[in-house]
């Protein structure tokens, strides 16, 4: 006989029917059902297969600790494995299937593993690393590479979909005075007390209904009490979040929540995310997270039909499902009596086994009146049956242990081995829970930081005490935030009529039993003892060796029992063995929720220049430069990238080219001390830079290495416009702020990033002056004499567009950098491009820009990688010997001035038809090994030279390699190429074109 739906009772709506499928079979349930309750009501017993032994499993709990009914929900791209059936709200159209079984969970060939169980004990997998004895003894694990996949296939849980996740997820932030986790009697009462005292309260509940243990109770009194509290919470303005799990607590009152927004809906609004990942910042937190009922390790304690007693009570009272007709309730404490009474009242034939020698008077009396048969000193020894329970062998007290005696015919076994308060979230804060031997459980401190424990999470077992502790915690939170609140006297922790008798495992002499400690990972009591025999002492090592508590329940089911068995093996008490540290998440969090909207185009924010659309409409192929999207090349017709950039380079050198250089960092330096400030950060003198002139500058770090380079334009007596490399814009800005705020607070200087304010276009090539002259309102400002090399003007483009232009060159040609306020960028390009086109010019991208700068030997972020001194970069003459500047002291260290340091050089292939790659290592011909003599940072085909060239660094610089051949070693890509080392200034070394 299996479970059945009762004709009445529970919180389900029998007037409505929900259709769903289980393993492709149509079934039905009612609103209010969980998937587990509906499957039980449909007579399903085997709902899963265990991780390693493929043992049949049924529903073992009614909550997040479920280790039996783990199923796969959804199909195709929405296939979601390892869903705990008791936590899955039933909805129309839900599809669920069994997992880790073939052909199905009811008949699984993998069950053969159970018969081979003695070979698959703890550490089995690790031992396979040693190879197959005796063939591989001492030789390593050659065969392992072959058989590893079979081992992996034989064990496991559900499979995730291989398809892309079609759902979207999002993050959220919220703030409150008080965050209450859990909506049982303690949680609701604390939220209410705090809200009534004037706090802004958020109440978090992982279930789809408020109430916690109220939901599992029968009778109108508790129902009404629960309903009244919910109404009061709403009236008090408490912000309630259902289907939301607080999975972690972090510094400064930050809680991580996972909200399951649409997992319970058949046709969710397509604009709603499937799940939402919350960051809550709370001034105070109350953890009313309840307690989990422990099982007891007896023989076959994982058979379908064995579940914890509180679950049995939940199924009968909340879901109207009777777990069995002939039920044995086994307990070592008072709590299971209510379960036995409720089941008996619902029509079951109930026998209650109490491990204790005496019965709790009043409870036992009520149980007797309800028709429950009571036995003392009796425990379950071994469940009989395979796919379902059909009987239970019993044991009775024998001295300090147990001996087998008798059996009971039954179809369900409900077990209560005591309660473990949910201290996980407090544990996340680095608090070690302490063992309370009187209540046989770990308890967290009642208060830590701004966090309080309340209710059964704090060790209160009676509902009335839980409510009281909740009110007290709410009042404390209110007082902490300056509100008036009453002080309450709390009863002592615990609250059972008769003390619990610690029982963790039932063993009798001469009888081999498979007693599961951690059912989800198939860890048995014997595995714990094996680990002990193999020398494991620390609980942390035990956990890793046996995998106890490392499954998706994180040790909720088995940790305490495992500790108790380890303590017994070591001859110590539980507190001496220690406890494991609970870490986030409390329950699994999907990767989708973690990433939120940061996927696909939102994987990272895209930074567009103001010419972005203009560039695209003029044929740009874009590339990423940091977060920037920049034009890579402008292909014409069917040009390849190589053909395009060579053409762009040739055209620019011959006539004129336009390039979007907006991504360069731009910083406004303002103030009476701006000149002094620049003079301190740049290696070269800035004190006498005239207004209307720009200067190329190098800045070093404190340690003397080059940080960045760029030009700085003097706009007025007190204002400069600094440009930086694209790569180092942010770093330079932060560095300048740091200097002003920490070292030179006396300087009256402000620095402000204006990278977004100004859009820039490089106009380069012999025709550049002509193009610009045709675009400015007053062409005379472009005269060679009026506007010399390194000159700066502020003028207007036609149409009244304000602009600032500097005659500076990265390409090595006569060139100008032209900046306009960003909203005028497209207008600027619409002016410049027709004139450039008339001159036979082109648009060019990053690839041509790189080709020209390599020809010219100009450094970029690729060269200035933090290892390069100013001398290494060939710019030593820019370091003033007459002034002090950042890095001036430490750049003189002996190692920084070695003659054989790698220095900037140009690189030609010896055979001019050859090419080589950036990243290749430069070696001497006779020693192509190790770190080599240098490296290549950039390569290109040089239209000016007619062959491949590179830029990089090599020991001693190009003079040391004159007449010598080097090897560009690139073993994993291109192999070795013979190269010549030349001056880095490979194009127009005298600068005639630039100055022209």
């Amino acid at each position: 006989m299996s479970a059945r739906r009762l004709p009445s009772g529970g919180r389900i709506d029998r007037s409505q029917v929900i259709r769903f499928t289980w393993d492709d079979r149509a079934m039905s349930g009612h609103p209010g059902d969980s998937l587990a309750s509906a499957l039980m009501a449909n007579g399903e017993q085997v709902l899963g297969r265990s991780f390693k032994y493929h043992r049949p499993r049924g529903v073992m709990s009614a909550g997040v600790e479920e280790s039996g009914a783990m199923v796969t929900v959804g199909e195709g791209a929405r296939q979601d494995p390892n869903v705990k059936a008791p936590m899955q709200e039933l909805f129309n159209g839900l599809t669920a299937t069994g997992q880790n079984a073939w052909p199905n969970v009811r008949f699984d060939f993998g069950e053969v593993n159970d018969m081979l169980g003695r070979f698959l004990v703890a550490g089995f997998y690790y031992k396979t690393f040693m190879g197959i004895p005796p063939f591989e003894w001492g030789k390593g694990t050659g065969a392992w590479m072959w058989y590893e996949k079979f081992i992996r296939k034989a064990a496991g849980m559900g499979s995730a979909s291989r398809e892309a996740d079609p759902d979207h997820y999002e993050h959220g932030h919220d703030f409150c005075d008080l965050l209450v986790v859990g909506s049982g009697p303690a949680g609701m009462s604390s939220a209410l007390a705090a809200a009534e005292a004037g706090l802004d309260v958020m109440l978090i509940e992982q279930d789809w209904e408020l109430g916690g243990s109220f939901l599992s109770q029968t009778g109108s009194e508790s129902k009404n009490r629960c309903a009244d509290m919910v109404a009061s919470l709403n009236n008090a303005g408490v912000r309630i979040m259902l289907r939301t799990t607080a999975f972690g607590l972090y510094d400064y009152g930050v809680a991580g929540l996972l909200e399951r927004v649409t997992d319970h809906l058949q046709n969710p609004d397509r604009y709603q995310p499937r799940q939402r990942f919350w960051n809550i910042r709370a001034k105070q937190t109350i953890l009313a997270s309840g307690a989990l009922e422990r099982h007891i390790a007896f023989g076959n304690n994982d058979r379908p039909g064995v579940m914890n007693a509180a679950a049995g009570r939940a199924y009968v009272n909340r879901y109207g499902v009777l777990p069995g007709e002939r039920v044995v309730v086994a307990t070592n404490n008072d709590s299971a009596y209510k379960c036995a009474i409720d089941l008996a009242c619902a029509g079951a034939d109930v026998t209650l086994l109490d491990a204790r020698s005496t019965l709790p008077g009043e409870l036992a009396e009520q149980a007797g009146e309800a028709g429950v048969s009571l036995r003392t000193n009796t425990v379950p020894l071994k469940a009989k049956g395979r796919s379902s329970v059909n009987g239970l062998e019993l044991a009775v007290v024998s001295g300090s242990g147990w001996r087998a005696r008798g059996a009971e015919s039954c179809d369900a076994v409900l077990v209560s081995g005591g309660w473990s308060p949910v201290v996980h979230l407090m544990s996340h804060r680095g608090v070690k829970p302490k063992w309370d031997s009187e209540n046989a459980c770990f308890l967290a401190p009642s208060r830590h930081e701004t966090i309080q424990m309340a209710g059964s999470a704090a060790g209160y077992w009676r509902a009335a005490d839980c409510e009281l502790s909740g009110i007290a915690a709410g009042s404390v939170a209110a007082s902490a935030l300056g509100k008036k609140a009453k002080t309450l006297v709390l009863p002592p922790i615990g609250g059972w009529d008769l003390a619990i008798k610690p029982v963790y495992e039932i063993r009798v002499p001469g009888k081999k039993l498979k007693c599961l400690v951690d059912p989800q990972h198939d860890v048995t009591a014997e595995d714990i003892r094996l680990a002990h025999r193999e020398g494991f002492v620390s609980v942390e090592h035990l956990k890793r060796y046996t995998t106890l508590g490392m499954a998706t329940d994180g040790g909720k089911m088995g940790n305490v029992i495992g500790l108790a068995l380890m303590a017994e093996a070591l001859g110590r008490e539980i507190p001496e063995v220690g406890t494991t540290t609970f870490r986030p998440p409390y329950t699994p969090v999907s990767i989708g929720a973690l990433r939120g909207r940061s996927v696909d185009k939102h994987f990272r924010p895209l930074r567009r220049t103001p010419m972005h659309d203009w560039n695209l409409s003029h044929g740009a192929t874009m590339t990423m430069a940091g977060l920037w999207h920049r034009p890579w090349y402008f292909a014409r017709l069917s040009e390849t990238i190589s053909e395009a950039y060579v053409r762009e380079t040739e055209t620019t050198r011959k006539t004129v080219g336009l390039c979007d250089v907006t991504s360069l960092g731009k910083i406004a330096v303002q103030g009476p001390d701006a000149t002094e400030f620049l003079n301190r950060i740049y290696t070269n003198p800035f004190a006498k830079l005239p207004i209307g002139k720009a200067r190329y500058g190098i800045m070093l770090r404190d340690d003397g290495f080059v940080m960045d380079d760029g030009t700085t334009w003097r706009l007025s007596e007190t204002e400069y416009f600094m440009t930086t490399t694209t790569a180092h814009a942010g770093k330079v800005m932060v560095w300048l702020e740091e200097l002003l705020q920490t070292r030179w607070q006396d300087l009256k200087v402000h620095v402000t990033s204006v990278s977004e304010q100004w859009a820039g276009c490089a106009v380069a090539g012999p025709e550049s002056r002509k193009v610009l002259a045709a675009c400015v309102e007053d062409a005379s400002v472009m005269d060679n004499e009026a506007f010399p090399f390194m000159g700066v003007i502020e003028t207007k483009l036609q149409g009244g567009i304000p602009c600032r232009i500097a005659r500076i060159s990265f390409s090595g040609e006569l060139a100008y950098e032209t900046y306009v306020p960003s909203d005028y960028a497209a207008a600027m390009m619409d002016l410049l491009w027709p004139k450039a086109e008339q001159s036979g010019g082109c648009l060019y991208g990053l690839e041509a820009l790189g080709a020209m700068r390599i020809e010219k030997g100009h450094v970029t972020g690729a060269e200035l990688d933090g290892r390069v001194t100013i001398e290494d970069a060939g710019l030593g003459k820019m370091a003033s010997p007459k002034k002090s500047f950042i890095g001036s002291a430490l750049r003189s260290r002996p190692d920084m001035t070695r003659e054989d340091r790698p220095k900037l050089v140009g690189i030609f292939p010896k055979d001019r038809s050859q090419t080589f790659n950036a990243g290749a290592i430069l070696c001497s011909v006779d020693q192509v090994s190790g770190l080599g003599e240098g490296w290549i940072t950039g390569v290109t085909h040089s239209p000016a030279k007619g062959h491949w060239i590179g830029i990089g660094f090599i020991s001693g610089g190009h003079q040391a390699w004159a007449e010598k051949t080097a090897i560009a070693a690139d073993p994993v890509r291109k192999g070795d190429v013979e190269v010549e080392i030349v001056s880095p200034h490979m194009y127009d070394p005298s600068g005639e074109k630039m100055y022209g």
Partner: protein
Amino acid sequence: MVDRISALDGHYQSGRFGTDGDTDVGLQLIRDLQLQQVAAWPDTIKKAADAAAKAAGADEAPAPGKAISGERGAILRSEPLKWWLVGVDSMQIDSGQGAVLDLSHSRTQIRITGPKSTTLLNRLLPLDLRDTNFREGAVASSAMHHVGVTLWHSASGYELFIPRGFALSIWEILFESALQFGVEVV
């Protein structure tokens, strides 16, 4: 003078979008932003504040984290030594008292309104926007989807200032997040 082209032009479509039912969020691009930054020296805060207030037509310049609206524009205290003048096209100050910088093109201004505007912002912004903490007249800098932004609670709603280069990216994620509330793009 040619027209200014916003970072959202070509991508900004007005209309009603998202889930059926109520329209709980309004999004509006505020075009042609005029934004002057006024920076003071540590010993000239009062003088620079007075100059900023005068330029905006306000009685005084606000304290950190606050904004004040004047006859000609609003003043936002963006940093301890800096104010933003919104709606003011130019301003002069002696260099001994402070520095003025035109940032009109550096930011894109989005106005967020409606009963779910706070909820929407908190999908992306880790700021406590509850009425008890971020009333009208409050200003704060924070990060939205990794991008530094400035938020001002004005009389019209929330005014979000986004660095121009990131504006379209932030607009897209803001708009997509708003669809669940029903959104009117003005």
